[in-house]
């Protein structure tokens, strides 16, 4: 027993690496779909979209770049699926130049799933500089802020934008942000002035800092990190990458916990040995 414990306590760390790799990879390939507890702040976003009438205008701003892709892309996919299923008109845009290609890809894939047509059911406006100033410009006139969309089609007279002059005509908007400035900026320059309802989606690191906004009603809902994305996938009944990701999270966390417990068992087995073990 002691010999075994001694060998296990000094185990080759590459075995631990393999365990972690397996615990991550297997759930990704074959999700086991553990139950996900849906939090009220995610439910609020879902409920709001659920209540919107058909052909309402839904604006989604991709305020992140590829480094936050693992957490925010699943959120975007789930939201788009929900919006397309509800037959909303979806407008996409980004404040981050480096996130443009990624955002366009997400749009195309989700739209293809539901047979939605670019220019008629959705439009991806792409990137334009300015940050807060861009939001103000959109609040005054959408067509001067974005004369053409990402694929260089003129925005004026686009069927999807029928009756939309500026941000006041947006029914609901969500900013998926990798920095707290994304959601704050949309609130300060957009919602506060042009009175549309808005929500936020954020990476796990910055989500806790956004709860004050939620409590004060500045945003009506908040999707936080991969967990939030998994909750949204559960709500729309389409378990995707986030649920699989949360399974992988559960698995790796449990692997580490079991490893720590085992190493303490081995450690205490050895402790009786002459004085203190190395």
């Amino acid at each position, binding site marked *: 027993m002691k010999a075994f414990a001694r060998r296990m306590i000094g185990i080759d760390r590459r075995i631990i690496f393999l365990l972690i790799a397996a615990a991550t990879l297997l759930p990704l390939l074959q999700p086991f779909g553990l139950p996900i507890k849906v939090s009220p702040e995610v439910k609020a976003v879902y409920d709001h979209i659920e209540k919107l009438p058909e052909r309402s205008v839904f604006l989604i701003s991709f305020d992140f770049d590829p480094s936050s892709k693992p957490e925010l892309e699943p959120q975007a996919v789930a939201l788009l699926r929900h919006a397309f299923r509800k037959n909303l008109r979806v407008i996409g845009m980004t404040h981050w130049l480096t996130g443009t290609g990624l955002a366009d890809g997400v749009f195309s894939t989700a739209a293809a799933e539901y047979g939605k047509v670019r220019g008629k059911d959705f439009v991806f406006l792409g990137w334009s500089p300015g940050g807060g100033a861009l939001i103000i410009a959109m609040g005054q006139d959408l067509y001067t802020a974005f004369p053409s969309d990402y694929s260089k089609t003129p925005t004026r007279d686009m069927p999807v934008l029928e009756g939309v002059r500026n941000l006041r005509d947006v029914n609901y908007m969500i900013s998926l942000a990798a920095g707290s400035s994304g959601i704050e900026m949309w609130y300060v320059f957009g919602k506060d002035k042009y009175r549309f309802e808005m929500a936020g989606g954020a990476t796990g690191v910055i989500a806790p800092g956004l709860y004050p906004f939620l409590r004060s009603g500045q945003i009506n809902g908040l999707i936080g990190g991969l967990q939030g994305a998994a909750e949204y996938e559960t709500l729309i009944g389409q378990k995707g990458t986030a649920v699989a990701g949360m399974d992988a999270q559960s698995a790796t*966390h449990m692997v580490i916990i079991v490893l720590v417990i085992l190493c303490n068992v081995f450690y205490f087995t050895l402790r009786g040995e002459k004085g203190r073990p190395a």
Partner: protein
Amino acid sequence: MPEYLLPSGTLLGAWAAAGLTLFIYSFLYKDNPLFKLGEHLYVGISVGYTVVLTWHTVFLRLLWEPLAKSVGEAPASPGSYLLLIPAALGLLMLARFIPKIAWLSRIAFAFVVGFGSGVAIPRVVSSYILKQIEDTVNPLLVRMDGGLSLGLDLAAPQSGINTVILLIGVVSVLFYFFFSVEHTGAGMVTARTGIYFLMIAFGAAFGYTVMSRMSLLIGRFRDLITFSGAAYGYATPILLGVTIVTLALWEMAVRRRAGP
């Protein structure tokens, strides 16, 4: 090229990305030629990238363009020549290439260090001292329905009981950092309390971070899974095979060399 394949730029990119990802991961097995290749390439690219970015954002955008623009104005305002100061200081930095006048670089050091020290002082007092005191000093009792009550709700961060715990934590950890007081007697008890606080907080922060680190791994694995599709020409499985075979061959070569 078969039709189901993606455009060549993306395809080549997927192969490069998948290959480099696997080369770097091979480091988890042990230091090996593939990792060395990836590592040196990575350092090279990052240095090249920094040089290009510095040239465009610093030399062109911050220095050259404003200078050229304001000198071009007639008459040029004296203020527009101010940018020559950092340029001169930058050149002093380069004096290090000539040992005889290398000491000139100290003037530039002094400028940088002086600025940093000055900027730090009031800002540190504001956000690390006053703000922290402000957030820690809270009344232990709250007035509710006309009566006084000591909030015993551990789940509410602002409750009286949590204020007390917070205060004990801050004071005991601060005491632990005292340098000119020996940790004996009552001092030892306080310092020990401080150490326990430190250890609990470190453990909690460690456990909390696991999730974001695993998210990174999930992200990488997801990319590798994407690249293993037919549209990408089965990049991941093929390159994984190449990596494993190379490692095996290398391992055999090393053993043979080390052998009798």
